């Protein structure tokens, strides 16, 4: 295993999306020695995706608002002393006093022989989020893609998943996805949203305090109108038709609990369906270290963070979606705040009191807005009625809703963990990232589901030969 020469760093930042970039740059500009690790070959994370060179996009920024913020960060990164390590998949973080060890696999898919360990006095977790999926009959048919996946494909390869694409699910991202698909030339016959957008009206204060967000929604709204996209709220895709590929979907109205209203189904012809139900914070590196979590308004687990972005474990900080899903501007503000706070803790740089006050205020305002949005898009318990007994819930292990219901009703499972033990749902390649939220809902007999504990001691699968040498090393003294 290689240890790099300049260790330990002052700060290791995991994730080079908006939050991680902002944090790394801010900390380095205050004089810290920073290493920035990301599994991907590029900086930018989920939001600022770069087209593959062969896609020859003339203007990647056309698909992004805020590209200038990113361009600025990239320039500052290039000018800084930050060591950027792309292609580093962090599988675990451990603490051997006085420093943290960040264990990485390298290579495109983490399969290179040589594992890397990076040591640092502080760690900033900016690992973002992954998409939440709720199963429904037909969701495994070719032509059904995730909303985020469709957006990512568009941003990095500029390809469309189909020509006539229904966008469905719940959450503010659907607006962005529908408008970029339409702008790229697809027909979007309908945007199907399970909650009522009216729900936002219950949080007028948060909306009024975030004019930028409101403007963003208006821009997307206007784009949708221009492209003739029909918005159908309080509705869901409850069936997908087609034998080898999507040919049509059934869109059904929902009651307040998201239960389908009998007889209200309407068929819409399409050749692709992009679905998403918001994002789930990716926090397993933190939970493996015992960081406290909270249940967000949308029913996902997020890290509990202090006023300056520190987790409940001293020396471990987090920013961006790991503290709750909130969008790119919040991620930028939190990243910078964390970078400054780490520098202050380690005694570097001048005190940046006024900037801290400003960033904190901005963050609090945007967090309030994010919470309001999250509450509006929480899945209603009635969504379980979308599932037929033969609908696959866990795709990796091919576990149906019927099997899960049996485990709960007849075998005595009461939570996602015991459902998994009794059915194997969530034991497959994705380790429950895909089916976890759905299984937790099905396991909850009464009341709100516990979010599945984001306990995956290995953030990515690890070759046994790498594990066999991981703790061998003597501690490198700082």
């Amino acid at each position: 295993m290689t240890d790099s020469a300049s260790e330990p760093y002052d700060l290791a930042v995991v994730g080079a999306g908006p939050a991680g970039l902002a944090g790394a740059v801010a900390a380095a500009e205050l004089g810290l020695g920073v290493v920035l690790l990301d599994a991907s070959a590029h900086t930018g994370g989920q939001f600022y995706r770069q087209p593959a060179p062969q896609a020859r996009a003339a203007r990647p920024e056309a698909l992004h608002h805020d590209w200038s913020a990113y361009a600025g960060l990239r320039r500052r990164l290039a000018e800084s002393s930050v060591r950027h390590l792309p292609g580093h998949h962090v599988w675990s973080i451990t603490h051997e006093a006085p420093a943290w060890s960040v264990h990485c696999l390298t290579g495109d898919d983490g399969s290179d022989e040589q594992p890397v360990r990076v040591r640092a006095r502080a760690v900033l977790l900016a690992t973002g989020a992954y998409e939440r999926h709720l199963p429904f009959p037909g969701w495994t048919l070719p032509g059904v893609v995730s909303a985020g996946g469709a957006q990512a494909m568009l941003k990095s390869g500029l390809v469309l998943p189909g020509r006539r694409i229904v966008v469905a699910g719940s959450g503010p991202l659907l607006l962005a996805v529908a408008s970029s698909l339409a702008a790229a030339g697809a027909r979007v016959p309908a945007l199907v949203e399970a909650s009522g957008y009216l729900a936002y009206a219950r949080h007028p204060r948060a909306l009024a305090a975030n004019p930028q967000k409101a403007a963003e929604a208006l821009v997307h709204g206007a784009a949708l109108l221009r492209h003739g996209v029909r918005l159908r709220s309080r509705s869901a895709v409850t069936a997908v038709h087609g034998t080898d590929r999507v040919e049509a979907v059934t869109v059904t109205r929902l009651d307040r609990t998201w239960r389908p209203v009998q007889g209200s189904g309407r068929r819409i012809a399409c050749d692709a369906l992009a679905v998403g139900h918001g994002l789930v914070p990716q926090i397993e590196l933190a939970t493996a270290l015992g960081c406290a979590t909270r249940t967000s308004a949308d029913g996902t687990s997020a890290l509990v963070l202090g006023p300056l972005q520190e987790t409940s474990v001293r020396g471990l900080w987090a920013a961006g979606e790991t503290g709750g899903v909130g969008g790119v501007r919040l991620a930028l503000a939190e990243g910078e705040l964390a970078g400054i706070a780490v520098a202050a803790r380690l005694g570097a740089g001048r005190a940046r009191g006024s900037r801290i006050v400003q960033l904190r205020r901005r963050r609090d305002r945007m967090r309030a807005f994010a919470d309001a949005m999250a509450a509006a898009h929480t899945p209603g318990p009635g969504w379980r009625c979308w599932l037929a007994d033969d609908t696959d819930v866990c795709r990796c292990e091919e576990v149906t809703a019927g099997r899960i219901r049996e485990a709960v009703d007849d075998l005595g499972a009461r939570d996602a963990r015991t459902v998994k033990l009794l059915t194997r749902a969530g034991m497959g390649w994705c380790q429950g990232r895909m089916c976890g939220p759905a299984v937790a809902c099905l396991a909850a007999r009464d009341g709100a589901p516990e979010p599945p504990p984001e306990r995956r001691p290995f953030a990515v699968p690890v070759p046994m030969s790498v594990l066999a040498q991981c703790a061998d090393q003597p501690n490198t003294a700082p």
Partner: protein
Amino acid sequence: MPTGKLSDVIVIGAGMVGAACAYYAAGAGLRVTVIDRGSVAGGTTGAGEGNLLVSDKEPGPELELARLSARLWTELSGALPARIEYEPKGGLIVAADEPGAAALRDFADRQRAAGVTAEEIPADRLHDLEPHLAPGLAGGVHYPQDAQVMPALATAHLLRAAGNRIRLRLGEEVTGLLTAPDGTLRGVRTTRGEVHAPYVVNAAGAWGGELARLAGVELPVRPRRGFVLVTEPLPRVVRHKVYAAGYMADVASGSATLQTSAVIEGTPAGPVLIGASREHAGFDRTLSPQALQRLAAGATALFPVLGTVRAMRTYTGFRPYLPDHLPAIGPDPRAPGLLHACGHEGAGIGLAPATGFVIARCLTGGEPPLDIGPFDPGRF
């Protein structure tokens, strides 16, 4: 205020051991209520492995319990659905060098005298049994009576097999025991009310000591932590349960420090399980890189092909440990009406049927199938 119909016995804990007690008690005609604060198999049973071993046990009371259990498991595998994944696949213990092999042969001789089937495997025949074993090992012993089961499914199906003689109360924690003015046991108090029965079985696993304390008696059960590594699904690379000779010494050790000797086994679903470390660390779930490193190193030393295989996850559980490595099974002389069935440490899946069988005999006043003196809960 009683909540629910009368029961003859209350079993606290819906793990493997509680399920076996309930099953055999119901089979003896008793009406059983099983109470668990969580899910079926949500405790250690859902956080361990399902090795049913005779191979790792010294001649003595635990081996006798294991041999009875092995017979009962064979019976149960016929009575329960195939989904419990019972596999009589046999165990193979290997030694790295000649002194190790000699010790192994000696151990096997003594086990054979106690009725265990054990077949010596010379070095040049090891690969007939396990083609992917590392070269250069000194020899081994094959134990055809070792078997495997999927613990959570076995527990759930055992509880279901007895039909309506067993009532399950899940998500309900026992917070106290009820006694009549004359001191006789009347049942338990829970977070949802009272449940009445003249007998209570403590099958609370690693939490059995806390439960005993509710009855005012001392039972020194402590958690002994273990990690298990799970690989990606593989075709059949490992055929038996395979482990290195040092394992028995680890099992028998009372030391608090980390002990690891990997037991390697394939599962019907494909992943290979590598378990398990042993250490006293309280109920702490924090990942131990040392434990994982040693498990992985042990496994790849025995099966070099596993080196490029990826570990998908790891999980941890808490074995219910008693200082003399023997479970507490039977009536508590200090608290009439209370029986214990806990403290099986790393063998509770294997020993569950015999434990349940013994408890059912105690409850119905029958003759126990073996000498239960060594398991007397009053011995501490």
